[in-house]
């Protein structure tokens, strides 16, 4: 704490509080997504193993990075969005709004906590998986870069969703009609080259596809797209979403009437 300057203590405290918020309920926020990912892995690998190879990689190995990243993204989104909607509905968001914390600091604290949740879930799944399956990482920095950028993108998106939604069911709609389709249609379970041309084109419009493709490159050194292109597209998507989130926060959208 003493390493943190007085000016930075406000946002630092908010970040710590957001961390503790999910860590307190880590059974739901970490253990549950790890479990879900393992179930997917068990079912799909059992059904399809030996029959399918992608990029010369056996199907189970191919599947794992996609599953990890899908969980990372969903959890980063859930972290910022559920914290915001909950504190809006409960009314306790005022405690933060009453303080000198600026909108930019607010954004950074929520974003950092979302990234932390994404990392914890991702590392959790990876550690459990490598107990059973040999899965070396060829480009660790790529893996890290896509994890952080991907969680940041979804964390920022979660801030937007949390500001926009007034009720829990609106948030559920956001999850079910935007986040789930984007994550399932991103090539987690297949290479998009196995899709008809039309759906390949559609997949290219999905930022999740680039995150997962680039992340997978970090593991195997092969991918559908060049990792530099994927990284740039993910970074640009993040900046666009972050800009929108900051703009909304600055205007006080639904937070300061």
């Amino acid at each position, binding site marked *: 704490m003493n390493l943190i300057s007085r*000016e930075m203590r406000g946002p630092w405290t908010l970040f710590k509080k957001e961390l503790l918020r999910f860590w307190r309920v880590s059974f739901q926020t970490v253990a549950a997504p790890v479990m879900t990912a393992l179930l997917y892995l068990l079912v799909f690998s059992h059904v399809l193993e030996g029959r399918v190879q992608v990029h010369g990689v056996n199907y189970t190995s191919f599947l794992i990075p996609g599953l990890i990243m899908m969980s990372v993204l969903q959890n980063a989104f859930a972290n910022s969005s559920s914290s915001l909607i909950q504190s809006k509905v409960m009314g306790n968001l005022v405690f933060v709004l009453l303080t000198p914390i600026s909108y930019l600091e607010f954004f950074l604290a929520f974003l950092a906590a979302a990234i932390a949740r994404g990392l914890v879930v991702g590392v959790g799944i990876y550690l459990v998986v490598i107990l059973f399956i040999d899965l070396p990482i060829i480009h660790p920095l790529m893996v890290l870069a896509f994890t952080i950028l991907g969680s940041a993108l979804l964390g920022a998106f979660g801030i937007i969703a949390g500001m926009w939604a007034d009720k829990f069911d609106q948030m559920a709609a956001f999850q079910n009609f935007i986040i789930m389709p984007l994550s399932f249609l991103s090539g987690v379970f297949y290479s998009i080259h196995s899709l008809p041309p039309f759906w390949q084109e559609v997949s290219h419009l999905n930022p999740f596809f680039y995150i997962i493709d680039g992340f997978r490159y970090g593991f195997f050194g092969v991918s559908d797209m060049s990792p530099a292109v994927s990284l740039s597209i993910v970074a640009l998507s993040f900046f666009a979403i972050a800009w929108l989130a900051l703009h909304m926060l600055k205007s006080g959208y639904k937070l300061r009437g």
Partner: protein
Amino acid sequence: MIPAIKIEQVQKHYGNLQALRGIDLAIEQGEFFALLGPNGAGKSTLINLLAGLIRPTSGRLSVMGFDVQTQYRQARHTLGVVPQELVFDPFFNVREMLRFQAGYFGLGPENDAWVDEIIECLGLADKAHTNMRKLSGGMKRRALIAQALVHKPPVIVLDEPTAGVDVELRQMMWEFIKRLNREGHTIILTTHYLEEAETLCSRVAMMKQGQIIALDSTANLLKKIPGKNLRLKLSAALPETLRPLLRHEEGNEYMLALTEVAQVERVLSQIREANIVVEDMQLIEADLEDVFVDLVGQP
């Protein structure tokens, strides 16, 4: 001296609804000030504007000389707000929540002693490790007050702090708040209860429909307004001479509006002269709604 609160020409509109219609008000440092008014008068709106929780349609507000919008960091450092709603964070216990709150204001472990002192003073010591969710309403209210004080703000605003609070807690809270006032904090509270303003506050603003309709020292104001109700049950009809004081009547039960207790004597003697027997009698605090009807009704 810079006023603790300065409000200039403030309007707040929600669509067609004019929640505040041009408020001007200055509150000096060290005052114990009450904002009185019936539901919907705009008290909370005014407080939320001071706190920066909402933005004015027009006009300016400052706290200790700091504009609440352009100098919001300084303004918020000098202001402690107890919201009207019993809001709480269900994830944390009382002490954690207070430390986080202090942290948001840039305060670290050096402030922990003060946090413990507030916990002690507000009677929260044996609940310090209890989750906020599990506290009773009264305890939540105390925690809210504690939360507003973590950064030792010179100006403290309490929005209906005694709504739904039992008498014992009310007393304790007032003792504590009076102490803060003696120590130099400016206190502003909103309330429904005239009595509360009367015993605590040196100055009162009365609001109605987004405007301040009276602003004076409590003593002066109470002289002008009929703040007491005398309920009488009589053996016969009320004497004509007393009808100007009448607020409501129902059969042979009458409610008279009085400005001071001494008036009771005169009322009773007139009833006696008319040979009417008082079957039942009760002196009660006037409902603010009634007081406002009287105030606005006056030419």
